């Protein structure tokens, strides 16, 4: 029968040439001496095709219908492009998130009264710092609040007369300052002795120190707050976890309570706890009962909600969806390649018959059409990846992020696309190779 599967291997073919009946045959007059081993009438050898010729036929087949080739590619471009774009954008965004997200956020616990108090009150006892020190995993802890109902107070140098500076005033245990990882430009944080005795001591931020004409090496030095004299023991350089303290002056809790009364409803007190890495959850669980064993329900402890983490989770969920969508688009792309190839094979039936008449084997026909779909896929993949890289770059620039792209994805995407193209071409190509030359030529 005309169609046969090609089971014979090249090695078997070589041995058959030794057949004496064939070697006795007349040499073909038109045999071309320059070809390495041209098939001749006398010594038929299997039809062979040069790789360069195969590539030429593949490209010529694609370029004869450039518009169709581009449309066929579109699905692959979109599928691969959206896949690379999504992975790139989420890698870029999560790179940004982990840059934002510091250890400070992960090791902070805040304790507040909840529901919020409706009278001026201080729900935390004076020995809060000491109590919390018992918890395993705690590094430092203390109370803090904004005094004077959150309003500014007048501050001025003790000796000079002049316009007072309006500043925010805060109460903070030395433990709270340590928990907030405060650092000093000069002097020291007030002593526990001063705190216990409600001594009139204070810390000022570098900004306020400048306004008051205090230099960091001049402390301790006196200032006046609301007319009362205080001794500045230190100048705050930075308070990473409580940056608002940099707005003004900080007093010991007992001192502030004596001078300004209990924390007001508008500016309730809270406790800040610094924990060891990974201990925030456990510390938060134990903090209320440790501070107020009599009334633990009064307090709520929260390990700092890390919005960035949630953002990352939302993003990864969204990008998961888009990745699935990209996969669907890629499958549609593959189907469109398969479909167009089927159509083009029907149109090129006569060509297939002609090629068979010129000596093509089924594998040559399969190779040619698989090559066409593979190239379509690969080119679609390269174009899609390039567009995706532009999109990632655009998003990163717009957000002032550093673009992050996994090179493995960039380099494997076109390969994946080529494989998709070849797979899509498998069925049509085999169909093409099964077309009987006699039927193809009479059509």
């Amino acid at each position, binding site marked *: 029968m005309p169609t046969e599967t090609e089971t014979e291997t090249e090695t078997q*073919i070589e041995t058959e040439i030794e057949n004496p009946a064939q070697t006795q045959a007349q040499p073909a007059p038109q045999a071309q001496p320059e070809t390495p081993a041209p*098939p001749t009438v006398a010594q038929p050898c299997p039809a062979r095709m040069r790789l360069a010729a195969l590539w030429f036929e593949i490209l*010529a087949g694609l370029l004869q219908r450039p518009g169709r080739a581009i449309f066929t590619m579109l699905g692959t471009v979109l599928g691969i492009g959206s896949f690379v774009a999504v992975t790139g954008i989420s890698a870029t965004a999560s790179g940004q998130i982990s840059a934002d997200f510091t250890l400070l956020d992960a090791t902070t616990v805040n304790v507040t009264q909840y529901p919020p108090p409706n009278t001026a009150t201080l729900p935390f006892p004076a020995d809060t710092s000491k109590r919390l020190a018992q918890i395993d995993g705690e590094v430092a802890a203390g109370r803090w609040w904004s005094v004077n109902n959150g309003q500014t107070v007048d501050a001025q140098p003790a000796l000079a007369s002049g316009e007072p500076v309006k500043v925010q005033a805060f109460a903070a245990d030395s433990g709270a300052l340590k928990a907030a990882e405060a650092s000093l430009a000069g002097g020291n944080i007030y002593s526990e002795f001063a705190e216990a005795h409600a001594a009139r001591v204070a810390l000022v931020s570098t900004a306020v120190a400048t306004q008051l004409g205090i230099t960091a090496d001049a402390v301790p030095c006196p200032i006046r707050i609301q007319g009362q004299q205080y001794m500045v023991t230190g100048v705050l350089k930075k308070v990473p976890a409580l940056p608002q303290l940099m707005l003004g002056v900080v007093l010991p809790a007992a001192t502030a309570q004596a001078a300004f009364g209990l924390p007001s409803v508008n500016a309730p007190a809270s406790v800040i706890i610094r924990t060891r890495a990974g201990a925030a959850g456990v510390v938060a669980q134990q903090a209320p009962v440790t501070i107020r064993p009599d009334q633990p329900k009064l307090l709520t402890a929260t390990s700092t909600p890390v919005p960035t983490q949630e953002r990352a989770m939302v993003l990864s969920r969204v990008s998961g969806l888009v990745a699935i969508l990209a996969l669907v688009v890629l499958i549609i792309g593959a189907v469109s390649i398969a479909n167009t190839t089927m159509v083009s094979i029907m149109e090129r039936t006569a060509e297939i018959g002609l090629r068979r008449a010129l000596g093509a084997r089924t594998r040559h026909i399969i190779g040619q059409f698989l090559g066409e779909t593979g190239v379509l896929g690969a080119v679609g993949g390269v174009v899609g990846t390039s567009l995706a890289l532009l999109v990632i770059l655009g998003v990163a620039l717009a957000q002032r992020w550093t673009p992050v792209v996994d090179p493995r994805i960039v380099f494997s995407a076109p390969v994946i696309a080529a494989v998709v193209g070849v797979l899509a071409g498998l069925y049509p190509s085999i169909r093409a190779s099964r077309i009987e030359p006699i039927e193809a030529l009479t059509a």
Partner: protein
Amino acid sequence: MSLLELDSLVRTYPGDPPVRALRGINLTIEHGDYVTVMGPSGSGKSTLLNVIGLLDQPTSGVYRVAGTDTTAISQARRAGLRAAAFGFIFQAFHLLPFRSARENVELAGIYSHATARQRRERALAALERVGLPHKANALPAHLSGGEKQRVAIARAIAGGPEVLLCDEPTGSLDQANGHAIMDLFDQLNGTGITLVVITHDPTVGARGRRRFVMLDGRLSDAD
């Protein structure tokens, strides 16, 4: 040894009822022969030509090409033999529409491992032989019917085949073009190429040195 030997060749197309297109053909073709086969439509002429050209396989019987029993060799080897021994010329030309005349002719030899340069040189030489060197870069759409058939002939002879198999080569041409093609065949036959021409046209059939008539799957001498 003869070039082509057909011995009790039968080709039956399966179906209900099966079509017995060739019913025992005995034919020997020598080097340099000019064979014509005439016969009514459906008598099996094209089937015979396809079997001779190894595009189709006989249901039974033996077919030898230069002594090689073609029914006993692999399909790959048959394809190689087809590329080496036969050039086909069809009524419908079968030129690739998006390729120039030269590129169409260059397709010859593509499955016999010829290099691009060899194929180009042979293509230009073949176009020269059919008298169309000036149309090398023309697309088939811009060629007349006679010119198309000349390009197809150039493609058929470019690979240096032993035998040209022609199925109604003048079927799509007017009389003048048909005669020109027949003259070209005489020339080619003069250079040693063996010709097997199938036709309806008695004037074409008369050109052959060995003339046969096909009737109902059986071959007989025309004279």
